[in-house]
């Protein structure tokens, strides 16, 4: 039971942090939606778990202790999300490269123009 209370507290804190970040416009819209759903889902989970809501599903997957199932799905989500971040970062790096090159080439053109 105590574990559920801890999970509940963590979820509520996550929800508050997310809302704060959105209000301060530190999160991109798509990421804001994602983190809001994550916080809402964890809040719901911490409420639903003590009532045994996931016990049949966990047993279907052969997991004896239902919170472990939530953990596994959580890990899977984070693996996916870090991969997504990695892909986004690579794309940003490629764009940064193009922009830096353009700036350098344009600056060279400005410098090499004969004085009026």
């Amino acid at each position, binding site marked *: 039971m105590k574990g559920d209370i801890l999970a509940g507290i963590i979820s509520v804190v996550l929800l508050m942090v997310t809302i704060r970040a959105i209000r301060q416009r530190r999160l991109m819209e798509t990421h804001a939606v994602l983190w809001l759903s994550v916080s809402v889902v964890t809040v719901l989970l911490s409420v639903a778990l003590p009532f045994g809501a996931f016990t049949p599903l966990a047993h279907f997957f052969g997991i004896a202790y239902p919170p472990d199932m939530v953990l596994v799905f959580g890990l899977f989500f984070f693996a996916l999300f870090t991969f997504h971040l990695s892909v986004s970062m690579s794309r940003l790096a490629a764009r940064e*490269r193009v922009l830096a*090159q353009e700036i350098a080439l344009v600056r060279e053109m400005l410098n090499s123009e004969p004085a009026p």
Partner: protein
Amino acid sequence: MTPEQLADALTRTCVVIPAFNEGESIGAVVRAVYEHMPGATVVVVNDGSTDDTEANARAAGANVVSLPLNLGIGGAVQTGYKFAVRRGLHFAVQVDGDGQHDPREAPHLFASLVRGEADMVVGSRWLGRGDYVAPRNRRFAMKFLEALVSWRAGSRFTDTTSGFRALNRRTMELFAEHYPSDFPEVESIVLAHHHGLRVTEVPVKMVAREFGTSSITGLRSLYFMIRVTVGLLVGVMGGEEK
């Protein structure tokens, strides 16, 4: 190739010199290029140097394209190719900024490009000219890359990491669009081959570097090998590029 053909080709040539903190050597390199490759357009790509690379290159008379941040060798060389493409030049020769490449050797790189027999020519230290000796600890890596690239590119390459190379317009246009970033020399050979371009090697003389040290040592060389191997096996294989 007659001297007239060479002189004509040089007027349509861009010499691309990537430089990161090469202030000590860049002036001499630029002057040597102007002396031995008269008529060529010379561009020094200053890759976010913190020393006097830009000033010294300018003083030696080169065009200088200064990147606002350090992109690494791939991004720098690609900037040079973009410059050459936009200037409407037909050939590009890449020469390192540290004085390792002798511009007197450039005509050897040109011959088959000008005759239209190749789209990209890589200058190799190991084909008999010159007396360059590789450090012992590098030989295994070089042999390994040689085998890998020769397999992926369908013909024999002996000096896959050589940055002394010449391209025609088609190859320049490809590289202006797509060019590997971290360790581009090896991968670009295979990339060009996979785009149906003819890549060949010719013997050139190289001198041991005058200034600085190789950027690839110790643990970094291990990373280099892994990175290049993955790049060659995975990166080029699909050829799916957005």
